[in-house]
């Protein structure tokens, strides 16, 4: 047992919901207490669904347990009568699984016309991604039917799922590229797929399965069973997208050659741009500009799921030239793969695999990177430490569910990511000026902006007040109990004298936190308990802070 504040991954239950809410004319029925219905909110609120998600909680109450009532058959009948789904997936919850009921028998007693699958997701062994991947693979195994390949070259896009990170945009980006090549999409799954679409999966020449978290196992099965090759890389960044396109064309042409099918030719790269006559991505030129040279040297820390952590780390390093000071994932079952992918990008010491956000927060506090790519949790940690963060992976906040076209994959995605990196960090020239001349009045301006923002949302106010409180405590005399309560603070931090504190205030606020940390580290290493003005000056000289 451990104390958990926040979780990176959702539950197995949520994973089942994500697959079912992606598909057409199917339904999930959760044999669970009322409270488990909260998962439905995540869809209706974050995805702002204009219709009811395809899931129903068949409520189990304390009274039901006492009386031995089981409502599941009645709920199943209600669902069938109202919605006539082709397939109903039944899942138990973390509490009802302990009842050791035979849900197969219970479901059979409802005498449904629909296909019924009791999905045995043990919530204590599986989390969101494992359950979603497992269920989707089971469905593919169940329905994929042997059949001839399509006449013309075609692909399946496997993996996009409801509440996946920017998946709707990624899907558009992939479709745009396929359209440019003249390659047909046979099936997209689970996003928007019906049971019949799953049956048709083996008709495609190739499977595109860009997400390590979902779709990879189904692509493996289709390759083993039907010999369909798969393109498993995520085209994040310009070079990976070019390699991905070439691999796609080569593989389809190999198959085409065996079938005397049409030859696909790579069109001029301008064909992939939005207007059909420009560079497909602005990143290669942008990265070489004086603007970005002045910007370069900023350190980045990347933490997220497997796909986005690997893709982002390589993109920042290879295409924007940023030094990587650390990277890692919360998906422990993918940690080996991520580590392997990032050989040459981060050392073993710089690699982090943990599902406890406090550990990631402590690493960030220690590194103080100039750019953090993370989840909503790292965004929060960054805010607490006044660092810059962009969100690259779930869990997300409603703020990450924006309206405009923001893919991460393909050429379009490269531009979106580069823009986000650029606007997230403090700009290059601006930073030089601040370093040289102080804060140029930005500190006051910042305070004003904060007040305005604070009015926006009550909870934000709450959080800011707490943050302000934490900052206040840090600036003042540190009580041991307070220090201990902030997971990211260093125990036994030296005390600042008032003169040293005043001198520190003259350091531009952008870099003040870093300077404070470096000077404290310097003092600790030399056993200095009180940082005086003299110590500060010596430390600045010694470490160039």
């Amino acid at each position, binding site marked *: *047992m*451990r*104390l*958990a*504040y*926040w*979780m990176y991954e*959702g*539950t197995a239950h949520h994973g089942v919901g994500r697959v079912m*809410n992606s598909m*057409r004319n*199917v339904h999930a029925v959760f044999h669970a*207490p*009322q*409270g*488990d*219905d*909260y998962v*439905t*909110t*995540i869809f209706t*609120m974050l*995805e*702002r*669904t*204009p*219709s*009811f998600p395809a899931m129903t909680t068949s*409520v189990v*109450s*304390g009274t039901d*347990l006492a009386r031995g009532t089981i409502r599941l058959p009645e*709920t199943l009948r*209600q669902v069938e009568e*109202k919605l006539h789904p082709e397939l109903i997936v039944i899942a138990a*919850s*973390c*509490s009802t699984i*302990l*009842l050791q009921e035979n849900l197969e028998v219970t479901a059979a007693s409802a005498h449904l016309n629909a296909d019924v699958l009791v999905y045995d997701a*043990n*919530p*204590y*062994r599986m989390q969101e991604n494992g359950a979603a991947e497992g269920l989707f693979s089971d469905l593919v195994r169940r329905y994929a039917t042997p059949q001839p390949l399509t006449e013309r070259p075609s692909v399946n896009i496997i993996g996009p799922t*409801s509440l996946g990170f920017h998946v709707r945009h990624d899907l558009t980006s992939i*479709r745009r590229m*396929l*359209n440019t090549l003249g390659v047909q999409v046979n099936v*997209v799954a689970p996003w928007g797929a019906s049971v019949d679409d799953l049956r048709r999966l083996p008709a495609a020449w190739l499977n595109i399965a860009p997400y390590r978290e979902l779709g990879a196992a189904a692509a493996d099965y289709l390759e083993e069973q039907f010999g369909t090759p798969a393109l498993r890389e995520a085209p994040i960044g310009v070079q990976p997208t070019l390699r991905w396109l070439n691999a796609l064309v080569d593989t389809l042409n190999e198959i085409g050659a065996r079938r005397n099918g049409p030859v696909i030719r790579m069109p001029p790269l301008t064909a992939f741009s939005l207007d059909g006559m420009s560079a497909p991505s602005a990143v290669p030129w942008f990265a070489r500009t004086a603007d970005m040279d002045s910007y370069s040297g900023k350190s980045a820390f990347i933490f997220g799921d497997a796909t986005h952590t690997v893709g982002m780390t390589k993109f920042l390093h290879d295409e924007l030239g940023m030094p990587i000071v650390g990277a890692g994932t919360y998906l422990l079952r993918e940690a080996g793969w991520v580590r392997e992918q990032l050989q040459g990008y981060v050392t073993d010491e710089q690699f982090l695999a943990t599902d406890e956000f406090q550990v990631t927060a402590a690493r960030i506090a220690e590194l103080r990177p100039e750019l953090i790519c993370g989840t*909503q949790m790292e*965004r*929060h940690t960054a805010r607490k430490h006044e660092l810059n963060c962009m969100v690259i992976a779930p*869990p997300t*906040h409603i703020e990450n569910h924006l309206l405009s076209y923001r893919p991460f994959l393909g050429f379009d995605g490269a531009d979106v990511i580069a823009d986000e990196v650029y606007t997230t960090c403090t700009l290059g020239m601006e930073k030089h000026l601040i370093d040289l001349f102080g804060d140029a009045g930005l500190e006051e301006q910042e305070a004003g902006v904060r007040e305005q923002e604070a009015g926006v949302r*009550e909870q*934000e106010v*709450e959080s800011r007040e*707490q943050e302000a409180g934490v900052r206040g405590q840090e600036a003042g005399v540190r009580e041991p109990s307070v220090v*201990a309560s902030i*997971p990211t603070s260093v125990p036994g931090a030296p005390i600042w004298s008032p003169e040293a504190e005043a001198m520190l205030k003259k350091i531009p606020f952008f870099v003040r936190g870093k300077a404070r940390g470096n000077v404290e580290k310097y003092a600790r290493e030399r056993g200095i308990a009180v940082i005086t003005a003299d110590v500060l000056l010596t430390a600045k000289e010694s470490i160039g802070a």
Partner: protein
Amino acid sequence: MPPKAQFIREDGLYHSFCGLVSVGWLYQKIKDSFFLILGTHTCAHLLQNTLGVMIFARPRFAVSLLEEADLSSAQPDISGQIAEIKREHNPSVIFLLSSCTPEVMKVEFEGLAHTLSTPELPVLFVPASGLDFTFAQSEDSVLQALLPFCPVAPPEDKRVVFLGSVNDAVAEDFAMEAARLGIPVAGFLPASHFSELPPIGPGTIIAPLQPFLPKVASQLRNDRDCTILSSLFPFGPDGCRAFWEDLAAEFGIKVDLAEREAAAWERITSHTELLRGKKVFFASDTLMELPLARFLRACGAEIVECSTPAINRRFHSRELERLEGVPLVEQANFDRQLRDIATYQPDLIISNMITTNPLVGKGLVAKWGTEFAFMPIHGWAGVNILATTFTKALRRHAILDPLGSDPVWTMGLMPSAPGDVIPLQEL
């Protein structure tokens, strides 16, 4: 005895949250508290998603996470986590909340809390599991747990204690209003700090501010022999007038607030004019539905249906009197409600976080009932906010309407909805 109020109890196939969500406001209200949930990944995921992902810098709530290996032990050992909380947060009180899994495991919570409790740091058991508790109902459990820590007031101490969590500004309004009427105030349950719990005894008048606290009210009556004010809840001009007149009467003070009520109605005329004759359907789950529907009815709206997770004949008796003739449903079946909504075509639906967007997607005007739980709508000062919260959605949709009806504007947003897949050629 007034005639027995009529309401229907259905099978409870509605959408809602479990009792754990009340942690979201209670931890902020009781500033030196810590809320520890003995639960699973599901509980942590619920809190994260309903209380907003990562908006709290240092939440004073956490989950003691039951993992697979912990399922076999009859009585889980959470002393290590209690020590961690003490070290990191130094609270004055820890509330230990139950959840579904340990309930199914038959964890003996009373005993567990008792063994962890010390005089310096009490650990109080709070039943909150989703098997038995929905939304705000667990505040009732928290207050019951606090009750033994309220000092016993002597019989001659005749003062009021306001019952139910309201924010500090609202609490101040109520204390000042009481002083104005000459009503002596002993305090609030809950208070902002564990050490500030009010004395309660046979002379105490308990004035309920929130409609979801019937159990603690009945326990107060049994354990402390105090008087529970039977009145309307202080929402809207009608509710406030009845509440304060009835409360004053308990102290032998006769006040007539007719003019004050009239003035309050006068101030919200622009809202009541809009609400008059409108068909309103309550399908929310905050347990505030009865007084809200009563206020809307007084505004001239037609309440097509008022459903709520739980109705208590005694605690809600005065509200039920005013709602006579309104179809009242406890633990509604949501599917039946959808059919009735289609039939009656209400002008406004008060629904919940789970159902609102899909209802709006059907071309209806719906709003989050949860907003009422998080807005300062109590008392005279809350009247305008209360009225505005109802009319805002109506006014906004009236402005937006011309665009709303064409399904083209929701195309492609939801993979499982029909008509989502945009064919390749059209891109």
